């Protein structure tokens, strides 16, 4: 997956001022940036929720412009947004069933007793698990996650990161957007740092460590 010179406008505001970045297949990529730096906008643009005002988004070597979000989803893309990632008025089972009816990913056994509850009545962390489980159930080839650890216990986050590396090892592309780089993600292949809608740094996590220290 690759972005070339992508610009995005929200009404009067330009959120991305020409972003170039590449996320290698079969690896985990981390987008770092503070609030308002544009990391969420990058994910939303790749998923087709917002359309770039200029530039290209390439996926598997093909330009994706004009492809609706649901078509990208059916072609194997999944995005877990940072907020409102579940359908609150649907039950947990219905939420998960939207991707693949019947099964629940064993990585979140916590969800099994909650299947008949309305997702909106769950705690923030449980809702996040539902959102993650739904995305994983779809077995996406490109998995985009916006601050997936938000609201989860540290142990669950560690388990999630482990799981994401396994998913990537199956040849899938995993992209996380984070505010900071936790130690459990230091095995990531590439880190891109966004600052005010521009790429400020691209490289391996070790290089970034060197820069910070």
């Amino acid at each position: 997956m690759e972005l070339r010179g992508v610009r995005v406008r929200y009404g009067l505001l330009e959120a991305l001022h020409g972003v170039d970045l590449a996320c290698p297949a079969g690896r985990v990529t981390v987008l770092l940036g503070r609030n308002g730096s544009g990391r969420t906008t990058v994910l939303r643009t790749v998923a087709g929720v917002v359309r770039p005002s200029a530039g290209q988004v390439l996926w598997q070597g093909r330009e994706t412009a004009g492809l609706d979000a649901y078509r990208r989803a059916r072609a194997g893309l999944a995005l877990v947004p940072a907020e409102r990632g579940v359908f609150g008025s649907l039950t947990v089972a219905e939420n998960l069933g939207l991707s693949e009816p019947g099964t629940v990913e064993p990585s979140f056994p916590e969800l099994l007793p909650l299947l008949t509850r309305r997702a909106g009545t769950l705690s923030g962390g449980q809702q996040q698990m539902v959102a993650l489980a739904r995305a994983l159930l779809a077995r996406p080839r490109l998995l985009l996650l916006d601050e997936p650890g938000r609201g989860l216990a540290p142990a669950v986050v560690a388990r999630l990161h482990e799981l994401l590396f396994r998913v990537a090892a199956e040849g899938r592309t995993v992209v996380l957007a984070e505010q900071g780089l936790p130690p459990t993600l230091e095995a990531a292949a590439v880190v891109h740092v966004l600052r005010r809608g521009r790429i400020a740094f691209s490289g391996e996590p070790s290089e970034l460590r060197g820069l910070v220290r």
Partner: protein
Amino acid sequence: MGAAGLTLDLALAGLAVGSAAALSGVGLVVTYRATGVLNLAQGAQAMATAYLLRELVVVHHWPLALAAVCCLLVAAPALGVLLDLAVFRPLQRRGAGPAETMVAGIGVFVLLIGAAVLIWGTAPYGDAPPLVEGTALAQPGGHVLRLDTAVQLATVLVLATTVGLVSRYTRFGVRLRAVVDNRALAQLAGVDADRISSAGWAFGSFTAGLVGVLLAPFLLLDPYGLPLLVMETMAVAVAARLRSLPVAVVTGLALGVAQSELTRLRPAGQLLPLAQAVQTNLFVVALLVAALLPWSGGSDDTGLALPGGGRGGRGATAARTACTVLVLLPLGFHADDLRHALLVPALALVLLSVVVVTGYGGQVSLGQAGYAGLGALGTALLMSGKVPGLPALPAVPALLLAVAVTVPLGLLTGWPAIRRRGLALALVTFAVGTALSRLVFDQPYATTGLTVSRDGMPTGDRGFYTVELVLLGVGLLVVRNLHRGRLGRALTAMRDHQAGASAAGVDVPRLKLLVFMAGAGLAALGGGLMALGGQAFDPTAFDPVQGLLWFATVVVAGADSAAGAVLAAALLVGLDAGTAAGVSAVVVGALATVLGRMPGGLAGLARRAADRATVPARPGPGQEAALTPLGRRLRERIAERAP
């Protein structure tokens, strides 16, 4: 038969109308939930389907069953899908706000009515075929239960239950609820939200058709009555807050029964006509109440931020010159043509009231016809000496006093506008306009024994037209002052960003009251002139459907263009006088439905054209960049053809 028996009979009779209203509510709720659009065109869709069924059965002698299947299961859903594809989906793709979507809905409404007038004329038909015969089904205890009532009631209950079950237990239903819950997230989960919307439109259109076909036999089928009746049943959907099917069904049935039971209420003396007015218009009263109750619906809308509003600009001088010429021209007309032209300045004033409220202030107002009617009725009452304590006044003082009285009545819609925006405000203003029309203008207690003459002013058409022009000039001056200087800047700020204007110190509630009061005054002046021009008070001139047509006209002409409103008035009057009835509605409606591709309306188009014409052509690469995509394609094609 005892009182209890009568109560039961009346309840059974009321169920017929009640179940149709419930059905209408179910259709509106389902469409709104699946698409996020309150289908304002539903009444017109109902009317069109009813006309089609009558055409097939009465004129072409199709068997009733075949015709019904064709109309309800093929034609009506197809119309819904067509509307989705051609009108609403392009708007959604462009990220258009609820305001533009609403204008498009009104456009469809006006377009369908205009088309019906063109095809079938305005003469009412009394022979709309009933789907089910009204034979007595059973007579438990001597109370007649008619077959058609039973079938209608069963249809409503079965449909509402089916919708409930489908959305609860099927995969489609889960997807539908996912789209309702969070459309963007549903798309991310691979749900084709567009197809869900199309299904919603098809179903909504089917119920609209069913409502039309069921109601038509109870009344005379004409292009205006049925659509308005169905729009009044919006009360049911609004009471259900556009969410709850059970509430919609219960409200519909309860209103139908209540309306029927109220016929027994016969208060003595002066209250009787008022009670009767309320009884026959219970749905209007319910709509008013439901719209006025606190409701979060549409409160997070962005107001009526119709794009393309620029102030002044290059095309303005040309438009102003055209206006001046156009309104002066009739002074040289023959008597007959001049009589038609009398309507132009009056209508222009009414349209200007929409410009002030909607174009300048950014507030939706579908009820300006009501204020125009108040101006006309007030003038007539004052001239006829019907106002206690006042002698019969000559024309000019009567007109001015009527306007002065109507101005504070602008608070009727101005006050609700302080807390409401978008859809919620549109419903309140429509309800106020409809209530004025039904409970005042249509009632004998207000309108019997009125005489309107041009007493005390030039009685000839030419002289009267001159007076109209002077008053139009005064109106334009007020409008201009509202658009210039500190006041104009504050209004534009409020329209473009209400929270920002408020934070900058603009007293937004006060300004809203001001625009609604100014709008009421302008509309009343125009309405009064209409009455004086025709020398009669004509309640049909201030019908709520007229209000919708006028609103659509102004938005199409470019909501914030005063010159556009005057030109539009001339165009409407010209089309009505020079072509078949219905043409003007078709033109306005068709333009409103393509408004999504024409930001700023016709004035916006003209402005951009003028901008392009006056921007000096820059040499070299600059010119390349100024080409539109179409221009570039043309250039490439020319290059290909070149040897």
